[in-house]
């Protein structure tokens, strides 16, 4: 038994850690989708930009400035993307706005490629969370343990915000019925901006945790985690924050179990297979509300 644990504990730890990081990205997807019915394809790239901002900031300033500043820049970027690329298309068909999201993702990736020269950059070491720690028999980085705790903490805060504040109420209203809430005097644009700000902030935190663990940053580093976080959001029921978090942890852990079984070629494919199965049998996900087409 102890042998079994010794052999498999590292997989589980990796799964939980990755799951927590996916969760932080997934929340951004799920909130935006809940309100705008938009798959924000650029979200994964905002996550990567946050990492590069950190790399460049940290080269010139101390950590206690660069960390908050990175979060601020990321939030500003998320806000700007919404204002520039999504807001003008609010009345356009949904396909147009999704294409715009793809366009933004394309632009951000190319921009990062241009600025970094397409080479991997080393993510700065954040003291304490980058140090090694031994649990039972497995050695890992502190960030592995910090991630799930921090994730849960942030989620609880977020749920409080949504359930008990005025802006939270507005967000719920907008996601229930876009048109009616507009008529009720809710300032839609403000609500949407707040959504993007929260999503980008969480992506920035997620990026700090993720890249402290996996220290090489490339312009496409965020693409796969981004896609998987999206799958997690769908899996948990898009629009539902606890759903996204649980979905993310399930996907993170399952992915590592697949790898442990030696089916590494299919570790990414598995995630998508899971997505398709969920979509076919329960399109609203684990916790999502069923959406009825209005005629």
């Amino acid at each position, binding site marked *: 038994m102890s042998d079994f644990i010794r052999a498999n504990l590292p997989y589980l730890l990796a799964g939980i850690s990755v799951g927590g990081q996916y969760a932080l990205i997934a929340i951004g997807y799920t909130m935006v989708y809940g309100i705008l019915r938009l*798959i924000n394809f650029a979200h994964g790239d905002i996550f990567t930009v946050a990492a590069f901002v950190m790399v460049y900031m940290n080269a010139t300033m101390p950590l206690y400035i660069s960390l908050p500043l990175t979060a601020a820049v990321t939030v500003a970027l998320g806000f700007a993307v919404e204002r520039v690329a999504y807001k003008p298309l609010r009345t356009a068909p*949904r396909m147009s706005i999704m294409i715009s999201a793809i*366009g933004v993702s394309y632009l951000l990736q190319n921009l990062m490629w241009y600025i970094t020269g*397409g080479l991997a950059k080393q993510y700065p070491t954040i003291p304490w969370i980058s140090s090694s720690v031994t649990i039972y028999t497995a050695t890992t980085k502190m960030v592995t343990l910090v991630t799930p705790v921090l994730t849960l903490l942030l989620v609880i805060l977020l749920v409080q915000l949504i359930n008990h504040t005025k802006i939270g109420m507005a967000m719920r209203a907008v996601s229930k019925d876009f048109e009616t809430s507009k008529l009720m005097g809710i300032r839609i644009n403000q609500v949407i901006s707040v959504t993007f700000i929260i999503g980008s902030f969480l992506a920035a935190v997620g990026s700090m945790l993720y890249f402290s663990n996996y220290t090489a940053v490339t312009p496409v580093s965020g693409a796969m985690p981004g896609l998987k976080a999206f799958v997690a959001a769908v899996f948990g029921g898009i629009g539902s924050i606890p759903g996204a978090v649980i979905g993310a942890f399930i996907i993170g852990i399952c992915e590592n179990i697949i790898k442990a079984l030696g089916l590494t070629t299919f570790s990414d494919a598995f995630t*998508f297979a899971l997505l398709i199965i969920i979509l076919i049998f329960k399109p609203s996900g684990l916790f999502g509300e069923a959406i009825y087409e209005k005629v």
Partner: protein
Amino acid sequence: MKKTRITLIVLFTLCALALIIFSLSVKDSLPGLLDRMDAEQTATQDDKMLKARDRVLESIREGDRSKILRNLERYTSGWADRLDLNGEIGLELFFFRNGPSLTALGLFLLAAAVAMALSVLDRKGRFRKAAPPLMLIAAVYTGVYILENVVGSDSMLMTVLEKGAIFALIAVSMNLLNGFTGLFSLGQAGFMLIGAYTYAIFTIETGTRPQVYQYYAGGLVQFTLPALVSIGLAGLAAAFFAFLIGLPVLRLKSDYLAIATLGFAEIIRAVFQYDGLGPITNGSNLLRKFATYDTVLFPFVIAGVCIALIALIINSTYGRSFKAIRDDEIAAEAMGINLFRHKQMAFVISSFFAGIGGALLAMYQTTVQAAAFTSAMTYEILLIVVIGGMGSVTGSVIASFLFVAASEWWLRFLDNEQMIGSFQVPLLRSGFRMVVFSVVIMAVVLFYRKGIMGDRELSIKRLTSRLSLRKGGLKNG
């Protein structure tokens, strides 16, 4: 009016015949031309030039036209200071070089003359309506053929044309789905992959299989099919997979469909790289040494035929049903259109042509590997469709040529440092091209949402009427 037309017809016919006869007659004059060049050369024999002359003779024996031309080019450039290339020899050389182009031009003029003659005779006017677009297409093909002969297939222009034609087919196939049927699918790269692999697997020469499948003892497939058959198979294989995938996926709505098809494309990619399938797909290694084409006309013809077929489908009853589904699913269903069957049909047809496009892409690249068919490729094609206009076949075609030309050729200079005098232009370095390019794309997406063509088609009639309108406007103003 009629008189001028008849004069034109006669003039065209005469020109055409002259061109054809003349260009065909100079074809055999090559050895004579060489003799005359020898006679005119005055300097002493020099080893290098003798060797060059031997090469010309050898390539004439082999009969490889492009090789003859290349060697001749070298021979004459070596002699440039001793030969009078402006005189008779120069003229003859010119005709030898451009013989096929002149023949093609002649044939085109002849066809134009015939078409005009038919239009004059045609009382009902049906032919008169069809003639201009047909002539335009003929002009494009003749132009491509002549260009290839004049600038050579190594030039960037030809590369852009090749790739543009291939992407045009793929973009039109995606447009059929996204623009005409309203199904937002992001699985195009997956179907291209299936097509490219099917084509490559069946056309690798048996003798070279052990080299290609070096880790899998030469692979399982031990026969070779003709290229055209394999292209057809490539389309069928993609269509078959689309049929299977469509069964569950097509029940999903809009963005769920998008993400599910995207997921399937990723799964297909993983499956094709799976080691266990190595004897067939060569695992994660490249496939190479399969049959490719040697003239730019090949992808043009295949893509042209396929696009024409898609256009016919779009203008058929099925096409109208597709558009009805796009505009309003519920209304379409109420009108008696079987939603699932029609969606499935659009999905399978689109994938069929994406498969063929994949096969052509493989031929263009000369090697193929599953790792390249990522979602980024799908996004690029989607952007082409958007730039051209959702729901416009000609828009997709024009946009794909523009897209390829801009990304591969026109914007290349942005990737290199440039000096204007002693001033170094800032920002220009590797990667800037793609930044500018994506900004342009974003501008189109945001400000010209309809793209180049919107959902209309390019029509000569409208173009000419607009031109004449503008003239009229000037007169009035």
